[in-house]
């Protein structure tokens, strides 16, 4: 019944694109709010559980509001005697792994993307196709050979084994190449060369500044994937030297009766750094988009 009065102006507004964006009706908002609530609820729920005792998890009706136990649970989380893993070390490990992997992926992807987009060398096309082809090989297929490799290097139980295989990704190279082809005109590269840049300096002074917006996107995605990676770290690391995901899973398996409040405290704490990075890089991304708009 209420939808009819809104349906008419909305259809009319379709002619003017700008109007259409401004004229989001209440239904649009309602829909968006529902979607947001749906996505936030699991997070909220882990916070609720993390802030109660384990017994409260089984209460009926379920508790919907946060309790007062959060800091106590966090305190327990960082007590190796209780959870049987060094959670602080896990956090530090994850921070190191994700930071190194992110910086490396962004840097090397930009470097390779630049080469594929702007440099002339023999076999360029073939190599790029090969890089892309690796995208079609499932990760699981590589696990065993990679494990054997890490064993040979003597890197098992060391975070090197988590870092090394992820230092550059085919996806990153592809993303960067596509972006650079469009965002860095060949005359700009030529200008830099005539001005006195060697290839490395062209990359550093001209290409890197140009790829900042996409570097922020790639960095964000990579950090998230690296932080949340579970399978591979679980295979090559152990409970004494874990990443945060491995640590959380260890908390879940140490006791006969799982301490859900503790597990979800672990989850909650492990999400915080990710949120921080999102807020940090999100601004960069929006900045990049705005910059592009002004340039346009």
């Amino acid at each position, binding site marked *: 019944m209420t939808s009819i009065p809104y349906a008419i102006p909305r259809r009319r507004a379709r002619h003017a694109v700008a109007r259409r964006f401004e004229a989001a009706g209440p239904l649009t908002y309602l829909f968006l709010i529902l979607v947001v609530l749906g996505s936030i609820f699991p997070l909220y729920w882990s916070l609720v559980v993390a802030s109660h005792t384990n017994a409260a998890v089984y209460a009926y009706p379920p508790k919907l509001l946060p309790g007062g136990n959060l800091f106590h649970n966090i305190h327990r989380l960082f007590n190796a005697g209780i959870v049987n893993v060094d959670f602080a070390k896990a956090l530090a490990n994850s921070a190191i792994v994700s930071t190194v992997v992110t910086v490396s992926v962004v840097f090397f992807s930009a470097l390779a993307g630049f080469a594929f987009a702007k440099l002339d060398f023999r076999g360029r096309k073939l190599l790029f196709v090969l890089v892309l082809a690796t995208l079609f090989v499932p990760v699981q297929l590589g696990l065993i050979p990679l494990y054997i490799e890490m064993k040979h290097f003597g890197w098992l139980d060391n975070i090197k084994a988590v870092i090394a295989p992820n230092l550059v990704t085919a996806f990153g190279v592809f993303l960067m190449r596509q972006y650079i082809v469009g965002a860095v005109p060949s005359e700009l590269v030529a200008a830099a060369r005539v001005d*006195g840049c060697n290839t490395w300096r062209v990359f550093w002074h001209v290409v890197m500044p140009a790829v900042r917006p996409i570097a922020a996107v790639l960095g964000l995605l990579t950090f998230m994937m690296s932080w949340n990676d579970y399978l591979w770290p679980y295979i090559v690391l152990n409970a004494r030297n874990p990443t945060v995901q491995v640590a959380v899973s260890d908390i879940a398996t140490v006791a006969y009766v799982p301490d859900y409040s503790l597990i979800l405290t672990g989850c909650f704490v492990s999400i915080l750094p990710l949120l921080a990075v999102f807020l940090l890089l999100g601004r960069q991304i929006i900045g990049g988009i705005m910059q592009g708009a002004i340039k346009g």
Partner: protein
Amino acid sequence: MAAIEYRGLRKVFPGGAVAVEGFDLTIADGEFLVLVGPSGSGKTTVLRITAGLEEATDGDVLIGGEVVNDVPPMDRDIAMVFQSYALYPHMTVEANMSFGLRLHKVPKDVIKERVASAAQMLGLQDLLHRKPAQLSGGQRQRVAMGRAIVREPAAFLMDEPLSNLDAKLRVEMRAYLADLHQKLETTTLYVTHDQTEAMTMGDRVAVMRDGVLQQVDTPQALYDRPANLFVAGFIGSPAMNLVRTRLTDALAVTLGPTTLDLPEALLAKRPSLRGHAGGEVVVGIRPEDLEDAAFVPSANGSVLDVEISRAEPLGAEVIAHFPLDGIAGTARLNPRSTAATGKHLLLAVATDRLHFFDPDSGAAIY
């Protein structure tokens, strides 16, 4: 400052496209040489090879007397201005201009001084802290010029630097660049597809077609003595009227119903013409060598009767278009001419200034 010399330059791109062929040219120290030719004639390729951005397939490039074939761009001591300007978008005007100097480790105070003086010369003082995105086309063009000037290079290479400007600004910048060259006296290789630009700016003009140099000379010499049909048709606006016809045994040419006798003065300038008597030739008539007969008292017989298909009064002159022996003819007439669309008109031909070309080879007959 330095001379630039090309010896037997040749460039074949992978895939087989021959962009430059048998290119021999010397640009004197301090000269402003314009390389002109239609799009795709290989001008940019020559420039890029000069800058070291592209490798020649064959031949040598010499800058200041030294073969630089294997010298990377950064060590060639040349500056280049690009058609798209190619300013660094993330740098301010000042940073754009000083970038090359900073890379070459020029002392800070020298950089400051040169940037300031170039900015003053180009009227960029108030824009030094802007980014390229905040500049107009003309301002960007000047920054691109400034970036080249501060380098104080041995030579400037410019690839159609004015082609992205509107007509008025282009004319202004033309004069401006000519002034600048007078002041700096830096060897300049200037590429354009616009023959007007070539004629107005160059000390000498090199005409290029399909990768091959056609003729190199001063603008006036190119205009008066084109070496072949291509140069004759390319240089000059409106273009020369070129009509294929027969040279009679008595050394006269027929244009439609009219027979034009060739004066002795012409035959003296073009002695080889006698060898073509009785054969086919291409006759070339500059539009200004055709005049409304009413304004030529001594036209004595060298008169064409044409039907004007369009008359364009431009104030200082009238451009008349008419069919002439199967081609679209053009004439530049006295502004008082009564030429009007659809009317017949008698055109006097300055027969002593006719051009002749061999129809097979296209070479001019002198």
